[in-house]
């Protein structure tokens, strides 16, 4: 990878984005905003499409962004001035959540009951199955539209607004575009992220109603014997819709229960809806996984820069620290540390998710660091690093500007591989009853709950979560392969030694 401003070599390239018609020569030194003002057409079209997409989900986006900070806590910090503002923002967040969006549960409602004359309560009188499928289709269409619009925006930028007509990154992107295995991985990973992001609206019912507070919520159903619509606690209804293998005690995938609730993945042994559980569990897995990756990645990158720049004793010190951590089996270390921390305040943050993320981060960085150490060492030997040093550039700036960009790509490969591993690891711990606390959904707990029923008609409880994990981990691996081939088609990194990064400590 050469310097990014190496425009001259563009002439030897053949690419799809070579047509330069709308890029006048005079634009070269202007800032991006100026370049857009000169040629507003493509940018305006793109912005209009983005505006439509945002409008379709406006309420959810506003409330999503505003409900992240803990407003009560912020307000309490500086009473008087900040408090009313914080309260106002909290109200805005709540109101925003009430605004209808195209993916709201209320827009396409799948909860209802069947009377002899047809479905009541669902949108347009559709059957719950169809209504639910429609909502899922809308959510995924909407999300993949974002993906396409993002790509379209990138190509517009490349064609109309970027100053150099070719950069080395273009080759990377083009190689990835032709890598069908990597694209397959990207699709799976994106679908998983959407599942996590839209978890509350994807399920046929909600976590609050069905899983966490079933005895505080009621549903209506049509009683065939009395011929009337009656109401029942969700908890009681769940008691009648258990999947326990024998006899009538089973609600399998794509089946209705006797209260006319549709269960795309069937029910859990305690009668709760498995799909809702899985969607919410995806959110937990992804959040914990990404946080741990952030921690591990931060350590790994800082250490990689330091060891590549200073070498010698610094390198030796990090080797010893990393090896010491890796000498303790990861899963056992996490089991031990989470037991030790179980009674502290930190174990309560996000139902134990934060502790897990920190522990996976602390134990995960040596593997990541090893993966990027080689490329970091390589780049530190280049002439431009020497040049930067002899110009008296500060070490920090050299590392950030001249070394880090080179290593980021390699980091992404292993990040993708190890995220799959962390997801498996979290599931393994919750399978043992550790980690994320019940009743917060976590995939491993579904496998554990279904364990006695695998070879019965209630096979879905254990099998579906496992199959989903296999698909998602395969997706992350494929994405990693694709990124690797795109960055460095000649390399064989990822074969051999570091394969076990993807194995989640053996879970």
């Amino acid at each position, binding site marked *: 990878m050469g310097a990014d401003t190496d425009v001259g070599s563009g002439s030897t390239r053949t690419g799809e984005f070579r047509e330069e018609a709308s890029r006048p020569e005079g634009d070269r030194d202007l800032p991006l905003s100026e370049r857009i003002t000169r040629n507003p057409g493509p940018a305006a079209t793109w912005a209009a499409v983005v505006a439509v997409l945002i409008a379709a989900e406006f309420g959810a986006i506003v409330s999503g962004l505003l409900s992240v900070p803990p407003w009560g806590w912020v307000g309490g910090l500086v009473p008087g001035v900040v408090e009313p503002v914080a309260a106002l923002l909290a109200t805005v967040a709540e109101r925003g959540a009430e605004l209808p969006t195209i993916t709201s549960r209320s827009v396409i409602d799948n909860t209802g009951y069947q009377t002899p004359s047809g479905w009541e309560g669902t949108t347009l009188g559709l059957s719950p199955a169809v209504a639910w499928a429609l909502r899922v289709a809308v959510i995924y269409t909407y999300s993949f539209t974002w993906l396409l619009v993002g790509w379209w925006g990138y190509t517009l930028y490349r064609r109309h607004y970027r100053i150099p007509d070719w950069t080395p990154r273009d080759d990377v992107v083009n190689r990835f575009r032709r890598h069908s295995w990597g694209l397959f991985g990207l699709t799976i990973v994106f679908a998983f992220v959407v599942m996590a992001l839209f978890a509350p609206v994807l399920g046929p019912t909600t976590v609050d109603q069905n899983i966490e507070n079933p005895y505080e919520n009621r549903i209506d159903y049509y009683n065939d014997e009395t011929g009337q619509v009656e109401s029942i606690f969700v908890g009681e209804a769940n008691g009648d819709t258990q999947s326990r293998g024998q006899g009538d005690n089973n609600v399998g995938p794509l089946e209705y229960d006797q209260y006319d609730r549709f269960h795309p993945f069937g029910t859990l042994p305690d009668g709760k809806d498995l799909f809702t559980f899985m969607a919410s569990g995806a959110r937990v897995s992804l959040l914990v996984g990404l946080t741990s990756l952030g921690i591990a990645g931060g350590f790994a990158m800082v250490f990689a820069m330091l060891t590549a720049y200073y070498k010698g004793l610094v390198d030796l010190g990090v080797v010893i620290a990393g090896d*010491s951590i890796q*000498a303790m089996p990861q899963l056992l270390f996490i089991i031990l540390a989470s037991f030790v921390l179980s009674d502290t305040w930190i174990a309560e943050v996000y139902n134990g998710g934060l502790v897990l993320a920190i522990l996976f981060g602390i134990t995960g960085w040596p593997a990541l660091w090893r993966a990027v150490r080689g490329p970091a060492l390589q780049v530190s030997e280049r002439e431009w690093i020497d040049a930067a040093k002899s110009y008296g550039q500060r070490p920090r700036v050299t590392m950030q500007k001249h070394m880090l960009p080179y290593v980021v790509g390699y980091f992404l490969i292993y990040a993708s591989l190890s995220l799959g591993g962390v997801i498996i690891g979290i599931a393994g711990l919750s*399978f043992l009853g550790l980690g994320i606390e019940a009743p917060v959904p976590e995939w*491993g707990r579904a496998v554990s709950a279904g364990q006695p029923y695998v*070879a019965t008609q209630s096979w879905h409880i254990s099998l579906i*979560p496992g199959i989903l994990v296999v698909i998602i981990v*395969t997706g992350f691996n494929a994405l990693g392969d694709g990124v690797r081939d795109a960055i460095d088609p000649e390399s064989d990194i990822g074969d*051999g030694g570091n394969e076990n990064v993807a194995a989640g400590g053996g*879970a």
Partner: protein
Amino acid sequence: MGRWEYFLKRVLLMVPIVFLGTTVTFLILRVGPIDPAAAIIGPSGDTEAYAAIRDSLGLDQPLWIQYAEFMRDLLTLQLGESWVVVRGQSVWELVGVYGPRTLWLGFWSILIPIFVGLPLGFYAGLNPNTLADYIASFGGIVWRAMPNFWLAVIFVSVLTQSDALFGFSWGDWLVETQIVTPPDLSGLWEPTQFLGALKAILPAALVLGSASMGNEMRIGRTAVLETKNANYVEMAKAKGVPGRLVVWKHMFRIALIPLIPVITGEAFLLLGGSVLVETVFAINGLGYLFFQATINGDVPLVGSLMFLFILLSVGINILQDFLYTVIDPRVGYDGGA
């Protein structure tokens, strides 16, 4: 730097690693937010017993003395005794009971994938881009992505009910064995005992070896593809060396070097991942013992076991360096660690 000098340096490097790892364990157990004595005694707080435990663990002494004693005991291999799991039993005796099962499991979960994965990889590499190659390669990828604990759950359920599902009883096949039970490791020199112990561990070993089986297949495939057109292979073929011999004599060796980290990595996974597999198959090995010791708050046992695990992983690392030094003459400090 000479090869053996480099190797010696690597071995010396292991000393601070053992030291640091053990120190971290001490910090977690003694300085962390749990009170070891309270953890041992459980919620039924009895002040006298509590004081006795504090006294015998030396918890009232200054921290640095505790640290010195902790390190001294472990480094001289005085591992102490269990307080909760099997009260009063020495840790060495416990390891003597639980350890062999984990070793037996580990041995087979390393061996079986090699004998299944490599030949499959060779086959795929000799027939590249055929349907069989695609099936084998894709199967390897999926097989690798399966969570071990989930695979174990499936195996247990299918095998315990194999009679009803396939009309074939796994439990009665060849020798009668239980599926969810520790393997009987007595009298292994007798054929039936050996077969029984092997059969009992086979599903668990397959599960634990699943990740490396996929890797080994890939290595085998790459090795064949890389060497198929090499001059010395062409030469051997021209000389009339039979195809089978070409594969095993010339291609197999190339596959050996990348195989080392996979095998040692597998041994690492075994240390950590055996918790789940041993729990599902009820093998009662070291991983299971560690898990029980942890959730029961048996702090002394946990510390000693963690120390043993650190020693084991360091041993595996040394073994890996040794194998590299013996097999690959190119290894040196410059070649990358």
